[in-house]
């Protein structure tokens, strides 16, 4: 993943109350209010889209489709969840549809998915510990995760969406979502702590 630029969320992300008035106005057909909503939330939406697709161009397409669906579905938004959470769910759904259409899941069947390539395991462990911090290893591990596993772990562990919402947006059962989460976390841990994974592998 090569993001165009990374900034801190502090002071950048709109709070729910900031957006409520805009959402109400946009639901009444105020197009300027909807435009302002896009302006205030698009970086957040793009961040999630990029994390799910792992590709800048794909992320832009997902963002466009997300706002189109949001625009069309705004009248159905009941305000039960925060507007941003509602947008995350649409983004997750669009990314899932997008990746499926693109055939990115061809070799990503849950039952058949193999272990991720663990290049780090071959590397000198000491060197790895000195050179890379935990965060860069996490980025690397996320990049190597199959999209289906990445989607679940990002939505759950970064965006804190409940299992039910994740399952609904990805079109899978809640138990499948939980299985994928476990597999994803296991792979992330194995990649981030290769020395332990190696010991475990030898013990089996």
């Amino acid at each position, binding site marked *: 993943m090569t*993001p*165009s*630029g*990374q*900034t*801190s*969320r*502090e002071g*950048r*992300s709109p709070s729910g109350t900031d957006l409520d008035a805009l959402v109400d106005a946009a639901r009444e057909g105020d197009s300027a209010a909807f*435009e302002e909503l*896009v*302006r205030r939330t*698009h*970086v*957040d939406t*793009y*961040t999630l889209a*990029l*994390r799910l697709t792992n590709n*800048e161009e794909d*992320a*832009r397409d997902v*963002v*466009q*489709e997300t*706002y*189109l669906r949001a*625009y069309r579905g705004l009248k159905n938004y009941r305000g039960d969840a925060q507007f941003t959470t509602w947008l995350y769910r649409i983004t997750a759904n669009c990314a899932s549809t997008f990746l499926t259409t693109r055939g990115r899941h061809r070799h990503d069947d849950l039952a058949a998915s193999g272990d991720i390539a663990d290049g780090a395991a071959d590397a000198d462990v000491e060197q790895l510990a000195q050179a890379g911090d*935990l*965060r860069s290893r*996490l980025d690397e591990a996320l990049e190597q995760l199959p999209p289906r596993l990445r989607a679940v*772990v*990002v939505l759950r*562990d*970064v*965006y*804190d969406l409940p299992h039910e919402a994740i399952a609904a947006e990805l079109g899978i059962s809640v138990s499948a979502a939980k299985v994928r*989460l*476990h597999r994803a*976390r*296991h792979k*992330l*841990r194995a990649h*981030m*702590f290769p020395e*332990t994974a190696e010991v475990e592998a030898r013990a*089996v």
Partner: protein
Amino acid sequence: MRCDELAHRLSEVADGTVTLPRSQRRHVEQCLRCQAEIVQYRKVLRAMRAMRTELLEPAPGMVADVLAHIEEAGERTAIRSIISNHKVAYLGGLAAATAAGAAGAILVAARSRRGRVRLAS
């Protein structure tokens, strides 16, 4: 109790969504390997949560692209609606013309039958 019997639950122990039954808890308390795994999962989860505070900036022009996409889609919908309205009008006209033709044919047939009856009488 073996470590691999517990392995699938350790990430949930780390995120606090699962409390192990007493026998499993006792194993973890005595097992350095399981404890190390839980610690590693906690580190993974902490790093994941930290990502929540980061924003990845898109290249400039995204808002304009989004709005243009919505507008385009709106236009496409409008065009489709016009076409389908035209189709409805066309089919309606065709149905009306067919009905008028059929009515005319019936009328002509009825008149010619009446004429034949008069001639016969």
